C-alpha cells in the first residue's frame, strides 16, 4: 500500500483542478461531490496506508518515496520526495480525517453561498498543500507546502470579498505570516549553505555532527526556524492576524485556523527537534513564547463577545500549550495535544458554525441565549468540545493531552516549574472563558429566532468529532491511569521520549485549576446575560493587550508615512527625467508629421539627393 502514498496529496489537488476548470459549468451537487470526495478518497488511502504502517512498520520506521528530481545544481540536489514516518503519519491522518469531516460539514454549511465551487477549490488546494508540507522529505518541499497553505489561508479569509474588511483581514494574515516565512526562508538557506543538504533527515544528522551544542550557528538557525513557526502558529509576537482571520467562513476557521495550518509551526519544531536540542536558548524561547501566548490569549478570550473570536484566542492559547511542551522537550506531548486539539477545536468551530447558520450569522454570544433546548445537536457538540478544551478530568481527550504537557513541564527542572505554573493558571482561564461562552450562549433567556433543521452532513461530522474528543485521549494515559503509551510508542523512533512527573500532585493541581475555572464561570455567568461594561481593563484585553495598536503605531504608520513621503525622492526624479525627455522629444518630432504630401515628397527628394551626393563624394 505504501506505493499509493503519492495519491494522498494528489487527489485533493486533482479535486481543486477539476473545480477550477469546471467553474460555472458544474452543478452544485457535482461541486460538493468533487470537493468532499477528493479529500474523502485521500483519507481512505491515508488510513489504509496507516494500517499497513502500524501492522508492519518499515525498516527505520520511515517509508520514502522519491517522485522526481527537482533540480541538481552546484552540488545541491533537491528531489521532490515524500517521507512517511510516525510524525508525518499522525499529521497526515489528522489532515485527511478531520479535513474530510470539515469538508462534509461545509457542503451543507456553504449551501446557497455565492462561489460554492470556488470555496471547495481553495479548500482542496489547501489540503493538498498541507499534505505536501507534512509529507515532504526535504525543506524545500516543506516550504512549498508552507507557502501554499499561506496562500489558501489568504484566499479563504477573504472568501466573502464583497466586504472590504474581509479583504483587509486576509491581507493582514498574509503579510504578518510572511514576516515569519521570510525568517524561515533565511533559516533554510542557512541550513542549505552550511549543512550542504536540504533533506530534513540528512540536515538534522549533519547538524548534530558539525554543530556543537549551543554553537552560534545552530542557535541562529533554530531561531530563524522558530520565526517561521511563530508566524504560522500565531504565537507572540506575530499573533495579531489570527483573530482577524475569523472573517473567513466557519469551516475555514475550523480546518485552517484551528486544526491544521496553525499547528504547522508545532510540526516544524517537532520535525527539527534535533536542531533545537543543539540550541538550548532557542528551545527555552519556544517554551517562554508558548507560556506568554497561552496566558495573553486566555485573558483576551475572556473579553470577547464574538463566539468565533473567543475560539480564535483559545486556539492561540492551546498552540501556546504545544509550544510550551516543545520548549520543555515534551515532544510527544506536543504532538498528542496537537492531535486532540484538532478534534475538539474543529468540533467547537463546527458547532459554533452550526449555531450561527441557524441564527442568520449572528456571532455575538450575548444575542444568543437559551440555545440549549432549541439547538440540542449544536449544544451537545459545543459542550463536549468545551469540556475537552477545559480539560474536564478523566472523561475528555483534552484532559490527557494537557496533563501530558504539564507533567512534562513539571519534570523539566526549575524553569519548567515556572512554565508549569503558567500552564496551570492557563488551564484555569481556559475553563473560565469557554464556559462563560457556554453559559451565556446556551442558557438563560432566548434573544433570537432559530430557524431550520440540520441535515446529516452537519450531524455526522459533529458526532464523529464529539466521540473523538471524548475517546481520543485513550491512546495515551498517564501512569496514574493505566499507563497506556500507544502514541509515544508510535512516535518513539522520531521523537525523544518525554520526561514525566513522578508525583501525582501536579496532576491533581492542574485538574483542580480547570474545574475551578468551570465552577467560577458557572457562578458568574449562570444568571445574567448582559454585555460587560466597557472598563479600561476590559478594553485592554478585548484588544488583546493592544498589540494591533502598538504595531499600527510602530510599524504600519511609519511604513505608510515613508511610502507617502518617499513617493517623490531623488531616485524617482531620475525616472521623471526620462519621462520628460521622451515627452519633449515626442513634441518636437511630432511636427514633422504634417500630413501634407508635398512636405513628405520634399523630404524624400532631399534625402535621396543627399544619399546620392554622399555616394558620389566618397
Amino acid at each position, binding site marked *: 500500500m505504501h506505493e499509493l502514498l503519492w495519491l494522498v496529496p494528489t487527489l485533493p489537488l486533482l479535486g481543486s483542478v477539476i473545480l477550477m476548470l469546471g467553474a460555472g459549468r458544474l452543478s452544485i451537487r457535482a461541486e460538493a461531490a468533487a470537493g468532499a470526495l477528493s479529500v474523502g478518497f485521500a483519507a481512505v488511502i491515508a488510513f489504509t496506508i496507516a494500517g499497513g504502517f502500524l501492522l508492519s512498520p518499515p525498516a527505520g520506521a520511515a517509508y520514502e518515496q522519491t517522485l522526481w528530481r527537482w533540480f541538481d545544481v552546484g552540488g545541491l540536489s533537491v528531489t521532490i520526495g515524500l517521507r512517511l514516518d510516525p510524525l508525518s503519519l499522525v499529521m497526515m491522518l489528522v489532515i485527511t480525517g478531520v479535513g474530510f469531516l470539515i469538508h462534509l460539514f461545509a457542503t451543507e454549511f456553504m449551501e446557497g453561498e455565492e462561489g460554492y465551487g470556488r470555496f471547495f477549490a481553495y479548500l482542496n488546494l489547501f489540503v493538498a498543500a498541507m499534505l505536501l508540507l507534512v509529507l515532504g522529505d526535504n525543506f524545500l518541499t516543506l516550504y512549498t507546502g508552507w507557502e501554499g497553505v499561506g496562500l489558501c489561508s489568504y484566499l479563504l479569509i477573504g472568501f466573502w470579498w464583497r466586504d472590504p474588511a474581509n479583504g483587509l483581514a486576509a491581507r493582514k494574515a498574509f503579510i504578518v505570516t510572511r514576516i515569519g516565512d521570510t525568517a524561515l526562508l533565511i533559516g533554510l538557506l542557512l541550513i542549505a549553505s552550511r549543512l550542504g543538504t536540504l533533506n530534513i533527515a540528512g540536515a538534522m544528522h549533519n547538524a548534530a555532527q558539525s554543530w556543537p551544542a549551543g554553537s552560534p550557528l545552530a542557535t541562529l538557525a533554530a531561531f530563524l526556524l522558530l520565526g517561521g513557526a511563530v508566524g504560522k502558529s500565531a504565537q507572540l509576537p506575530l499573533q495579531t492576524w489570527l483573530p482577524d482571520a475569523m472573517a473567513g467562513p466557519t469551516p475555514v476557521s475550523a480546518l485552517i485556523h484551528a486544526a491544521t495550518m496553525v499547528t504547522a509551526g508545532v510540526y516544524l519544531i517537532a520535525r527539527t527537534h534535533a536542531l533545537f536540542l543543539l540550541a538550548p536558548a532557542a528551545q527555552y524561547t519556544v517554551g517562554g513564547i508558548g507560556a506568554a501566548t497561552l496566558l495573553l490569549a486566555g485573558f483576551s478570550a475572556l473579553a470577547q463577545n464574538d463566539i468565533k473570536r473567543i475560539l480564535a484566542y483559545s486556539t492561540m492559547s492551546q498552540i501556546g500549550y504545544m509550544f510550551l511542551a516543545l520548549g520543555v522537550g515534551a515532544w510527544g506531548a506536543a504532538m498528542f495535544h496537537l492531535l486532540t486539539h484538532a478534534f475538539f477545536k474543529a468540533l467547537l468551530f463546527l458547532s459554533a458554525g452550526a449555531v450561527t447558520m441557524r441564527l442568520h450569522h449572528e456571532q455575538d454570544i450575548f444575542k444568543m441565549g437559551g440555545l440549549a433546548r432549541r439547538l440540542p445537536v449544536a449544544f451537545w457538540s459545543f459542550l463536549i468540545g468545551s469540556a475537552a478544551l477545559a480539560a474536564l478530568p478523566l472523561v475528555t481527550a483534552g484532559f490527557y493531552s494537557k496533563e501530558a504537557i504539564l507533567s512534562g513541564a513539571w519534570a523539566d527542572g526549575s524553569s519548567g516549574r515556572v512554565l508549569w505554573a503558567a500552564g496551570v493558571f492557563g488551564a484555569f482561564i481556559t475553563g473560565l472563558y469557554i464556559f462563560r461562552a457556554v453559559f451565556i450562549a446556551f442558557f438563560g433567556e432566548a434573544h433570537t429566532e432559530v430557524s431550520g433543521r440540520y441535515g446529516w452532513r452537519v450531524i455526522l461530522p459533529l458526532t464523529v468529532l464529539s466521540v473523538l474528543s471524548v475517546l481520543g485521549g485513550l491512546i495515551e494515559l498517564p501512569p496514574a491511569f493505566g499507563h497506556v503509551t500507544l502514541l509515544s510508542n508510535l512516535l518513539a523512533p522520531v521523537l525523544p521520549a518525554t520526561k514525566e512527573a513522578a508525583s501525582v500532585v501536579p496532576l491533581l493541581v492542574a485538574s483542580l485549576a480547570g474545574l475551578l475555572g468551570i465552577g467560577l464561570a458557572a457562578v458568574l455567568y449562570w444568571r445574567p446575560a448582559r454585555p460587560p461594561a466597557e472598563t479600561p481593563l476590559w478594553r485592554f484585553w478585548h484588544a488583546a493587550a493592544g498589540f494591533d495598536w502598538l504595531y499600527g503605531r510602530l510599524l504600519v504608520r511609519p511604513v505608510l508615512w515613508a511610502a507617502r513621503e518617499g513617493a517623490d525622492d531623488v531616485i524617482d526624479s531620475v525616472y521623471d527625467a526620462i519621462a520628460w525627455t521622451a515627452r519633449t522629444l515626442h513634441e518636437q518630432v*511630432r*511636427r*514633422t*508629421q*504634417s*500630413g*501634407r*504630401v*508635398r512636405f513628405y*515628397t*520634399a523630404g524624400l*527628394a532631399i534625402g535621396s539627393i543627399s544619399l546620392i551626393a554622399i555616394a558620389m563624394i566618397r
Partner: protein
Amino acid sequence: MTAIPLDQGLGLAAALFALGLAGVLVRRNLLFMLMSLEVMLNAAGVAFVVAGARWAAADGQIMFILVLTFAASEVSVGLALILLMHRRNSTLDADASYHLRG
C-alpha cells in the same frame, strides 16, 4: 544615323526628372502633381532606353515597357483617388487635405 551620346541622353533624363520633381513639389493641384509624376517616370524610362542603346541591349527597352505598364496602373489608381478626394473636399488642392497630421 549616329547614336545619341550617352551623356547627352542621361542629361536629358536628369533634366526631365528634375522638371517632374519640381512640378510635384511646387504645384498644389493634384492633377498637375500626377502629371509631373508621369514626367518623372518617363525620365527614368529615357535613362533606361539610352543605356540600352549604348550597350546595344534589349533590356533597356523591356524595362521601359515595364515602366509604362506601371505608369498606366499607377495613373488609374491615382485618378480614382483624385476623383474621390475631389468629391470629399470639393477641391484639388493637395495642401487642403492634411487629416493625417500627427
